[in-house]
């Protein structure tokens, strides 16, 4: 049986269908990222999975139980991190974790949890004086201290700086590598790419893609070559075959190609004639962001040309 099962799920607020006839399953141990723009229905779905919100129609099962009717035993088997930090500021990190650990039948040791979320150095610090990123990791620590079988993360790194995001990711990875099923919502494409085995893209309350990050990336089109022209090269000097790849500002080449080798040969041949060393040349697969924007129907910005 799947850890999470959602069938024909609908949530209506008046005339607004926040979630519209959505179905999916999450097998044990899978990390699922739910992506989508504001208003797509991500948080509403997560709140129905967590038992906070009752569906208007359809079926939800988490660990075989209807979350809205989940009892103490069921809640002891799930963990969650809410969209906003929700902690009492007066206690230390250790005291906070000890308090929450006492609610569960078989919690992780407080020291282990601190280690998992990289907060050992802040164990005796009051929650109220922690940075936003550290508080978010305390949230994550509370979410995992009960040794959850299913973990829900609602935009776990929104508002964090890059380093804090990386640290939070590491905490999640430490847990997921142990086989915990994770459902996370996020606005960040790279977060889904980094953490998830599978991606569901929502738009207007409906699923518009249910795939792996790799497959989603391939929807973004062919691989691309990016090259910023040196200042002394004017667009008029470019041969017609290359000039058609100029971006809107006329300073960068963005060559989307199904035959990278041929395109590179043409570019290198021209650069050789111009005595250019092609410094700054970028060659990469289509970005997940491009694929995501294509999937939800947003136009791609012409400047998008940076690839991993």
């Amino acid at each position, binding site marked *: 049986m799947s850890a999470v099962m959602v069938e024909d799920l609908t*949530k209506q*607020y*008046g005339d*607004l269908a*926040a979630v519209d006839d959505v179905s999916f399953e999450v097998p044990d141990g899978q990390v699922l990222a739910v992506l989508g723009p*504001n*208003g*797509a*229905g*991500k*948080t*509403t779905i997560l709140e129905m999975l*967590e*038992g*906070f919100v009752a569906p208007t129609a359809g079926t939800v099962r988490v660990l075989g139980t209807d979350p809205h009717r989940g009892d*103490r*035993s069921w*809640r*002891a088997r*799930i963990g*969650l991190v*809410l969209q*906003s*930090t*929700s*902690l*009492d500021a*007066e*206690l230390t990190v250790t005291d906070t974790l*000890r*308090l*929450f*650990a*006492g*609610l*569960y*039948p*078989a*919690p*992780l*040791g*407080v020291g*282990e949890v601190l*280690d*998992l979320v*990289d907060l050992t150095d802040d164990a005796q610090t009051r929650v109220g004086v922690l940075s936003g990123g550290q508080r978010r990791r305390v949230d994550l620590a*509370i979410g995992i201290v*009960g*040794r*959850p*079988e299913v973990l829900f993360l609602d935009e776990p790194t929104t508002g964090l700086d890059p380093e804090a995001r990386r640290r939070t990711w*590491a905490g999640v990875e*430490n*847990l997921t*590598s*142990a*086989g*915990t099923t994770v459902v996370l919502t996020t606005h960040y494409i790279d977060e889904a790419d980094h953490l998830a085995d599978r991606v569901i893209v929502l738009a207007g309350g409906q699923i518009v893609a249910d795939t792996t990050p790799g497959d989603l990336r391939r929807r973004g089109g062919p691989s691309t070559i990016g090259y910023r022209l040196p200042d002394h090269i004017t667009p008029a000097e470019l041969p017609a075959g290359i000039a058609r790849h100029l971006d809107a500002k006329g300073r960068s080449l963005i060559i989307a190609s199904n035959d990278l080798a041929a395109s590179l040969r043409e570019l290198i041949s021209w650069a050789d004639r111009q005595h250019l060393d092609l410094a700054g040349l970028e060659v990469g697969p289509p970005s997940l962001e491009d694929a995501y924007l294509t999937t939800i129907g947003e136009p791609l910005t012409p400047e998008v040309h940076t690839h991993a």
Partner: protein
Amino acid sequence: MPDIAATAAMSPVAHTATNTAADATGTKAGRLPSAGRLLAAQIRYQVRLLISSGRAIAVGVGLPVILLVASKGKDTRPDVAGYAVFGLTITAWSTYGVRLVAAREEGVLKRWRATPLPRWCYFLGRILATALVAVTAGAVTVTAALAFYGSHFGDGPDTQLTITAAFAIVAVLFLGAFAWAATATALTRVIPTVEAAFPTLIFIYFPVIIVSGVLFTNISEPHWLSTFATYLPAQPLIDAVTHAVRHTAGAPFLPIRDVIVLACWAIGGLLAAIVLFRWEPHRPTQRRAARTES
């Protein structure tokens, strides 16, 4: 960071295998902690929060003691029961209510709701913890009055405080604090924001304590208003404390009618709180619609 192997040992699969072992917190693995144990932990936690913030003690103890000191040397002797009830009620009503709304709006209540803690355990623990701190505030006020004025304070006969009477005072203060906090819990349902909490609570609080004679005992008020005040939770509390403080041999330590009124408020407030208590932050209609889209 722990390595993967170490983490794997903590997996759900692995912890099923260790269900017979005792864990680090001493809880028997596989069985949920008892409600009694969780309630005790919740009371300790909430008392700690109240004390560590400092505001509850500053208001609940500080204000009545300042009033006592300010009364020294005046013609009329201070009404210690009124001051004790003032410290108690402002803690169990205003301080408690504002903190509860703040916790709800910050998502703290929602976070607790998602845990295996029985829901009644959370708000009962919160009410009981507040009652304990409020009783302490009231008891400190009585003790300060005794230290400051000896047995000669208030109108009427001198204080005859016995050990039994002291227990009676603590008991009735606890009942009163519980009644005020439980009623405040129910009221928080209709308070939408933290900013609205203090004005709303105080708008109700001051008329009640004024007509009940908590701070001013020589106010002339219509008979119907005096009668009405005997059904509110402040005047019966003052009467009961005064009665216990001036207990005379052969009479009951607490007036039964006052205790019944307070018990009705406590039970009624608790039942209303159970029905009305809201865990989720309040959202205006248009914002709710916006949020559900995200």
